[in-house]
């Protein structure tokens, strides 16, 4: 049996022994059982947290059914995003065209649910059967007097990353449509936090404490009217860079808003995120406040982490997540609790991310792009890991082999960002790695 499919061998790199560079940003190989989803998935996960918008999926039922209420993205107000709407195309629609159904569906749903805007996701067959989704959106928009934004997300037209771009394109149409709004000084946008388990609310508190105002977060706890005002920010702070880079770049070009890439996972990266924002505004008072906040948080956090570190010291971890930028933070966060990363990979990482990982990790660490269950199970066995960090699809691989697991995907139920999140992370890792149940497993 093949350990790794030949065509994929350049997408696996062992630090110190591999001669080749890690290959990435390729389309998944047919039959490889990639852990990636599709273009539609990319756009759906990014736009999902916008809570006062109607999200209508135009296609047969599957795409809507599998993404109903899919993220733990919390809203402080409306909850419209938690309903799953589909045109549920049938055979006759495929034969005669889905435009009439899309028109009626949009109209009835906007009348019934009164959203602030609507996103219409095109799925695989929509283009093939010749539906002009943009025309229907324009018509309904004119009739209902709200923005109806097509999201061109046909599953086969690229990878999940192209879906991120489709989502950013839709968002870019909203940004800048409210010019009346006057932003307070020191205003930023956060791009790429999705308020999973309320993480954004913790971050908001940190920023407010150091005197920074958040105009909008794209898209955690998102609201249409706030997104319209996003162009009034002084800077965009980009957290999940894979998903939001397109928008950050577009806003830089169009509105001259610079951006910085940050991560909110782990103490170091969280602290840097605050320092960088303060540094951007060249405001000494703000910087001092940031330093005070960080040292106060660390004073309580570090002692709280010590008992975990004692138990976890020297344990080995494997990481396989969606974006590689997050993986970088996780490697650092694991170090903080004494753990060593021996395998790390992502679905959609780019060259820069992987180069950073290569610098950061120890010799012998396996770095992998767009992996699959067979490779992952081989790597975790080979490396004898004690912990696997991933998502729902990676979880059974870990558990079947008697390995601890931490869910760090977009469906997670625990807040893992920020200082508080670091403690939750340590607690979750500790709970799984040191559970007595593993003693019954042969390793």
């Amino acid at each position, binding site marked *: 049996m093949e350990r790794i499919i030949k065509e994929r061998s350049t997408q696996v790199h062992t630090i110190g022994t591999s001669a080749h560079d890690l290959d990435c940003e390729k389309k998944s190989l047919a039959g490889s059982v990639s852990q990636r989803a599709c273009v539609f998935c990319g756009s759906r996960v990014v736009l999902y947290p916008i809570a006062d918008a109607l999200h209508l999926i135009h296609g047969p039922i599957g795409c809507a059914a599998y993404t109903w209420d899919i993220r733990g993205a919390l809203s402080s107000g409306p909850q419209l995003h938690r309903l799953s709407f589909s045109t549920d195309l049938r055979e006759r629609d495929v034969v005669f065209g889905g435009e009439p159904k899309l028109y009626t569906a949009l109209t009835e749903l906007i009348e019934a649910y009164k959203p602030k805007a609507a996103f219409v996701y095109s799925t*695989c067959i929509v283009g*093939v059967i010749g539906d002009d989704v943009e025309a229907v959106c324009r018509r309904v928009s004119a009739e209902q007097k709200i923005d109806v934004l097509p999201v061109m997300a046909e*599953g086969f037209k690229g990878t999940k990353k192209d879906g991120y771009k489709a989502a950013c394109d839709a968002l870019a149409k909203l940004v800048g449509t409210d010019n009346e709004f006057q932003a307070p000084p020191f205003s930023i946008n956060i791009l790429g936090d999705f308020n999973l388990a309320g993480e954004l609310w913790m971050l908001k508190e940190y920023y407010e404490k150091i005197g920074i105002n958040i105009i909008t977060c794209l898209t955690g706890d998102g609201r249409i009217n706030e997104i319209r005002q996003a162009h009034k920010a002084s800077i965009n702070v980009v957290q999940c860079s894979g998903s939001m880079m397109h928008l950050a770049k577009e806003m830089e070009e169009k509105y001259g808003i610079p951006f910085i890439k940050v991560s909110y996972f782990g103490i170091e990266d969280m602290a840097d995120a605050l320092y960088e924002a303060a540094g951007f505004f060249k405001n000494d008072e703000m910087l001092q406040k940031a330093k005070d906040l960080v040292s106060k948080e660390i004073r309580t956090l570090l002692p709280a982490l010590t008992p975990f570190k004692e138990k976890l010291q020297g344990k080995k971890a494997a990481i396989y997540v969606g974006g590689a930028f997050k993986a970088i933070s996780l490697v650092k966060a694991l170090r903080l609790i004494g753990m060593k990363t021996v395998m790390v990979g992502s679905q959609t990482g780019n060259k820069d991310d992987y180069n950073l990982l290569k610098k950061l990790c120890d010799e012998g660490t396996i770095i992998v792009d767009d992996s699959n269950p067979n490779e992952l199970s081989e790597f975790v066995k080979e490396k004898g890991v004690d912990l696997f960090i991933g998502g729902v699809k990676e979880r059974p691989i870990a558990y079947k082999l008697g390995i601890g697991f931490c869910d760090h995907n977009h469906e997670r139920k625990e807040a893992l960002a920020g200082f508080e999140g670091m403690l939750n992370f340590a607690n979750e890792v500790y709970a799984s790695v040191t559970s007595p149940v593993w003693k019954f497993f042969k390793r």
Partner: protein
Amino acid sequence: MEKIPTLSYIRPFVSTRNACKLCSPLGACIAIKGIEGCVPVIHGSQGCATYIRRYMISHYKEPVDIASSNFSEETTIFGGEANLKTALTNVTNQYQPMAIGVATTCLSETIGEDVASQLSHIRNDSTSSNLPSLFTVSTPSYQGTHMDGFHATVLAVVKNYAKKLPSADKINFFPGFVSPSDIRHIKEIVADFDLTTTILPDYSDTLDNPVWDQYYRVPKGGTPISELEKMGEAYASVELGVFTAVKQGGQNGGTEVSGASWLESEHSVKNHQCLLPIGMSNSDSLFDILSKISGKDIPVKYRMQRGRLLDSYADGHKYIFGKKAVVYGEEDLVLALCSFLDEIGVEVVLAASGANSGKLQKEIIRHCPEHGKTIKVISDSDFEQINEACNTIKPDFLIGNSKGNYIAGNFNIPLIRVGFPIHDRIGGQRITLLGYQGTQELFDKVVNAMIEYKQNNSPIGYKYM
């Protein structure tokens, strides 16, 4: 934080709001997982395979590997044969499977892929000599629900493998879409009747593995292909469920065929069909069939189970009499649950399914002598329709998969979790519903849910009953 919006009035919608069904390829993948050494390949976009994997993993809590032919724009324009070949080659090299089942999607069907002939081209190509057994099933997601995909796959497998072989002393058993633990229970029952049985599909191990000391790329278990080949000469088939037939193309709307009915018409294997054996009468029907086929009396073990179940009906009947239930899910599950609830004195006020065979109401009336005529039946339904209907019907409990939990929350009533998916609890794969034993578990759950509800809302201590 506001509540998830609910309309306080009822109006028609052409859109589907919170689907109470899944797409056809998902059903196909579950059935394919029930064949020994078989890996599913979905002929379409990567997302279909990944979403279906993710959906199944959340329920079964098992590795579920499903490959994709990974359509790109070029594939969509020029056809998917080359991609399919790459997929089959890579799956073969990585998994060394005994078979590969290829399920189509809305995309591959819409562009008019003829997968059967693609498979024969690929098979005849000299560069793909090491391929295992291959079969395909047409599962466009714009047709029917996951159940159509499931039953179409069972039919495709039977048609592909069943041969006229010298008769083995066997029966065929088509359990329908039930839990791994239900399949294990069926195996136990038929073995106790001394019947040798081919169960299709049998994912009792592949989707509910024990822990492993090494990683199995293809989980052990499933119906062996050598047994599938003998299905044509079995002396009887038992088929659970009455919504098992799938439409076959042809003039005048075509015909409706299931795996078991096809074996009866093509290979003269007598088919014994009954409802999913949930409840006393439905379980009696199955045990009578097995007794008749085997020529053996019902074993004492099951007479005892039946006696205990009946005993518990006496113990529990008062707590549930006249309680109003909402039932939702696949048509066969809904029908059997309605029939069970009807026989224990629960009044089903709403029976809803995302499927639309056009026969659910008629079957419910037929199998629910107490309340059948007053049960409101909604076919082609969705969860928001159910949610809105609950405003006026004020049910005492819901019974169905975990996706209705938010409705139970809205009305502050219990949800009895059965079926697929159970995404918010562990153990969905271990819920037994079938036979006297499964019914016993379910009956206890229903009664206790009603007692607990009363207890929680009552000043009486309930220290003793």
